[in-house]
């Protein structure tokens, strides 16, 4: 057995391309509408692991991003 990757080939009629369908779907469009999606949508981006909020606050305090007062306030909100 040999792997075969189907190629998209242009459809045409025996007498040539039939361009006008009175505003309706062409056979090609109608055919495509009846087909399931051949390509799955890309998976959602992975969600980052949830950090320990206390550890995050400790880090922010160490880095000087927040003051001691802000730290205490936020720490009280987070709880133990």
């Amino acid at each position, binding site marked *: *057995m*040999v*792997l*075969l*990757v*189907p*190629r*998209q*080939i*242009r*459809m045409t*009629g*025996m*007498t*040539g*391309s*039939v*361009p*006008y369908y009175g505003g309706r779907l*062409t*056979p*090609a*469009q109608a*055919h*495509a509408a009846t*087909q399931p999606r*051949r*390509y799955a949508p890309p998976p959602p981006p992975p969600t980052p692991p949830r950090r320990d909020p206390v550890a995050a606050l400790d880090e922010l305090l160490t880095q000087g991003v927040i003051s001691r007062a802000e730290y205490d306030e936020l720490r009280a909100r987070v709880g133990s």
Partner: protein
Amino acid sequence: MTGPVQVLVVGFDEPSYSGTVLAELDRLEGAGVVRLVDVLIVQRGDDGSFDTLPPPPGARDGLGRIAAEILGGGDSDAEPDEATWSLADAVPPGGVAAVALIEHLWAESLVGAIGAAGGRPLGELWLSAEDRARL
């Protein structure tokens, strides 16, 4: 290549090597009606991938090569176009199909006559069995 070439895809539960279809095509070719350009047997896996299957025992050397070149060699990431078609549109996952390229020799002169008369294609379809019964 002179006449219009039809891509005919026929599904089977199992590969059928009875030879009856090829024999009929041989008969039509002998009568100058059609010419079997090539035939390829494919199997589609449940994951959507395609494999070619060996040609029937006793088949001519290279059978399936032309069809594989015409219908294969695609890009698995290519987006389908509304005016295009591929084997993936016809063969369901898990299916086996014979894919034939059939040149309609009889149509060459008709298509030429239509073009010479200035005709342009506006519609082309096959009548259903129900409507054929009304003929």
